[in-house]
């Protein structure tokens, strides 16, 4: 099973400057671990010391904020699109 992950500029140094990568995982937690195996070092940037996504980072599954879904337990299906977007914008 693969999902498409959209990677923001500050994290592209871990993805060989790719803005999009394909990855596996049945939920967000697993996806982050899979990202880490493909792009070592990326997890420590996405997550804080408790292992949860940093508060200034928004994660979306098919355009819905995971905080309106099941958080990092949100299930992923083949072909889903996950976006990682820095939250500090607007206002």
């Amino acid at each position, binding site marked *: 099973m693969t999902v498409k992950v959209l990677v923001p500029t500050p994290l592209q140094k871990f993805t060989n400057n790719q803005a999009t990568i394909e990855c596996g995982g049945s939920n967000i937690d697993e996806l982050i671990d899979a990202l880490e195996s493909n792009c070592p070092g990326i997890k420590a940037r996405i997550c804080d010391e408790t292992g949860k996504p940093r508060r*200034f980072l*928004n994660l979306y599954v098919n*355009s819905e*904020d995971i*905080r309106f879904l099941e958080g990092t337990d949100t299930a992923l299906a083949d072909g889903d699109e996950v976006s990682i977007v820095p939250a*500090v*914008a*607007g*206002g």
Partner: protein
Amino acid sequence: MTQTPIKTSTGKTFTHLVSKEGGVKYPLKALNVCEETFSPLEVAYDYDEIRRQVSRESIEAGPHSIWRYKAFLPVESENPIDVGTGMTPLVKSNRLARQLGLKNLYIKNDAVNMPTLSFKDRVVSVALTRARELGFSTVSCASTGNLANSTAAIAAHAGMDCCVFIPSDLEAGKVLGTLIYNPTLMAVKGNYDQVNRLCSEVGNSYGWGFVNINLRPYYSEGSKTLGYEVAEQLGWELPDHIVAPLASGSLFTKIYKGFNEFVKVGLVDEKAVRFSGAQAEGCSPIAQAFKEGRDFVTPVKPNTIAKSIAIGNPADGCYALEVARKTNGNIESVTDAEIVEGMKLLAETEGIFTETAGGTTIAVLKKLVEAGKINPDEKTVVYITGNGLKTQEAVQGYIGQPFIIEPKLESFERALERSRTLERLEWQQTNV
């Protein structure tokens, strides 16, 4: 005879960008996010240099605009974009104050800010000046309306290309008030948070200066002038309490920063100013976090007539919470019906027609007073940040109607009698 200190230094006063969490330093480029923690970047200043450059007298002798505070703003240009932004009236309230039972209430009236009648002209004047310095020829923004008006207008003045993004359900006045300046206007089928996210994605690939994304550290500094002006207009003194609307939370935290900077460079005496924030119940993620004692903000999906402050995922929400708590302030929310009443109350008592955000702020002011959370003697400043002519839909149906009459004395007299009867009925209703 006292002598005005001569200030001769003109060096650059801002030095770098710094992460709000972790303190990593970044160069003065178009960057808004810390690469380590993704937290906001903020402009850092050399306050010794600012102290060398400014005095009360030098500021008073400066332009009648936000640029009198140029030493505190992150721009280098000799001639920043000056469209007369800032120095809006600080009105001593009599009738509203009496109605609420306050003795020392002031209204900072940015409903008449120039050129587009909201506080956003402050942040945009700074952002576009900086955008020009950084070499951008196209500027852009994600907006709930006021920012779109301001970016389009000031870009037109400065001769920059402009593409702005708004939610597609905005008030007609805000759409028209953007289109008149002939920018490219993208009305996105979605709420502001979705517009914002789209812009975060566009921002990286087109090389545009997004005032509230990659230029955000510079842009947001413009709001400090709302703090500086109030201090200067109060006779170089800080108020005891301020009440301001909360959308992203940025304005609130920058007024706080502005007051502190004036203390830091010795322009005003230190004072414990209380900071209270206002949200609409239909979009109150910061007020909810405040009530529940949380230090994080859970995003919500907005549903309120106060569209200009309908940000469900506020970027500076956690910092606004921090400011309200450490200053012994409050964050309250009010219903859409209370917002309309707030707009009417300000108009009827002070002659100021504000938009829904201002109605929210007045309604929260009233709620805080009624709850005993504002001392009647406190020198309280309420910030009115936008103009009511832009959100006419909100009050349509809640205000009176004109009496349509014939051009004849008799017709006028009949109508006048009717109006007096209506007024009596209204009084009777009020008394019940």
